[in-house]
């Protein structure tokens, strides 16, 4: 994603603020959890300003590989990662360098140094943005995996725990897993076993690689244990024992 997505009212407001702030010589702090678009918004504010990880930047300054006189503004990601952040900000202010920073949280130690603050909320609070991002990642994933045609979106397992990062990952995984063929699944298992097999292995323990997915899938499909035992042609007592063994009962 190269542009900040703003479909929700809140994201539109943040983008509006970023656009206004881009013409002002003031320090801007963008906060919010991981994966909400802080870096993209920082680029809107900074235009062509150079960007660095804050920790890396502080080390570059220490090593004198960055000439502050040559900088008029700088984008610093994850400023909480720098221990002496107040000192770094002061140093930049003394050299009239405008700071556009991102952080996971508001920190009172340096908050007053930033006159403009933009707070981005988690994606789960912005369903309009989620929908656009979902469509974007879906299109991207389909192109990557050469999957033509429509996708059944009800089969996508969406994960917003890490916002856009987990959303993208979950869409790619869903699309990949939903389109695997039998030989590809066997290849994956074989590949896994080649990497993990040791000198001594318990065959029964390795069986869980087959049994757990099978029992989970059967549970979803056949709902009751009675139906599961009937359709899988397995003794009910044995089935119950296996479900208990894998904490699936």
């Amino acid at each position: 994603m190269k542009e900040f997505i703003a479909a929700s009212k809140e994201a539109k407001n943040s983008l509006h603020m970023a656009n206004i702030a881009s013409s002002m010589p003031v320090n801007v702090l963008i906060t919010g959890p991981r994966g909400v678009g802080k870096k993209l918004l920082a680029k809107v504010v900074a235009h062509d300003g150079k960007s660095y990880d804050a920790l890396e930047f502080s080390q570059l300054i220490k090593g004198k590989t960055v000439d502050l006189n040559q900088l008029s503004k700088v984008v610093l990601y994850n400023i909480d990662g720098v221990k002496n952040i107040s000192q770094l900000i002061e140093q930049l202010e003394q050299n009239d360098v405008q700071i556009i920073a991102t952080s996971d949280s508001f920190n009172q130690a340096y908050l007053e140094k930033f006159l403009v603050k933009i707070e981005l909320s988690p994606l789960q609070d912005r369903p309009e943005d989620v929908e656009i991002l979902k469509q974007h990642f879906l299109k991207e994933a389909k192109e990557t995996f050469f999957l033509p045609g429509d996708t059944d979106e009800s089969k996508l397992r969406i994960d917003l725990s890490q916002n856009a990062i987990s959303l993208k990952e979950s869409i790619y995984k869903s699309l990949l897993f939903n389109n695997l063929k039998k030989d590809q699944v066997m290849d994956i298992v074989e590949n896994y076993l080649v990497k993990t097999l040791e000198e001594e292995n318990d065959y029964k323990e390795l069986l869980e690689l087959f049994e757990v997915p099978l029992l989970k899938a059967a549970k979803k499909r056949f709902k009751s244990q009675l139906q599961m035992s009937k359709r899988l042609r397995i003794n009910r007592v044995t089935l119950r024992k296996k479900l208990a063994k894998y904490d699936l009962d």
Partner: protein
Amino acid sequence: MEKFYEELIENDLDPFILFNSSGSVEKYNKKADFLLSFVSYKEIYDLAISNAPKSFGFKRTFMDLEFKESYFAILVGYLDEEYLGIKLYKKAEEENSITIDDKYKSVNLYTLIELSKNSILAGRQISLIEDYDLTIPETKLNIDQFLKLLNELFQAYSRSSRLKIRSFLKLGEFIKVENQKYQVCCIHLEGDDAQVSDEIKFLAKNTNFILTTKETATQIEFPLIVDK
């Protein structure tokens, strides 16, 4: 001789107001004219009544008063049942000496209000009423100082359930900067909960902004310096 005393009062640096027995303003001097442009005469009358001497004569009371300018005492007196006079003693303060340095940049006032308002009040349940005079042109300001003051003020109103923000040009008043007169630009905030601390007042004073408060209303005034 009477004429001399009248002129003396007229040209006094402190405001003087004379009320008649029905509570209406009978006479006032130049300084009182200025004072009554932002304080109601009723408020001054009430102040005079509550601090009047018990019998004929004059009574001086020391108190801190803030009517845009600061006052340290009042003198209230009457010689008959007809007239009641009040004089307010202005605190001797250093005149605002605004110097325009290279940190003053031409800027759109509303973009700054927008940035500050959103920075501080985003996510708060405040009902905002905004009334801006959009004819106010770009003005030269120290952006850092102005944003800092606005941020502090919005923070002071952050517990309000409603907040009215107004911007306008003050008619008939000027601020003198480096021997030049400038129109007065105002931002007026009014909410139902204002925590405007002395620190904020101090900040305004140190950064060339005139800040006045009255109950839950606050007003910032500054010169409208337009790039020619």
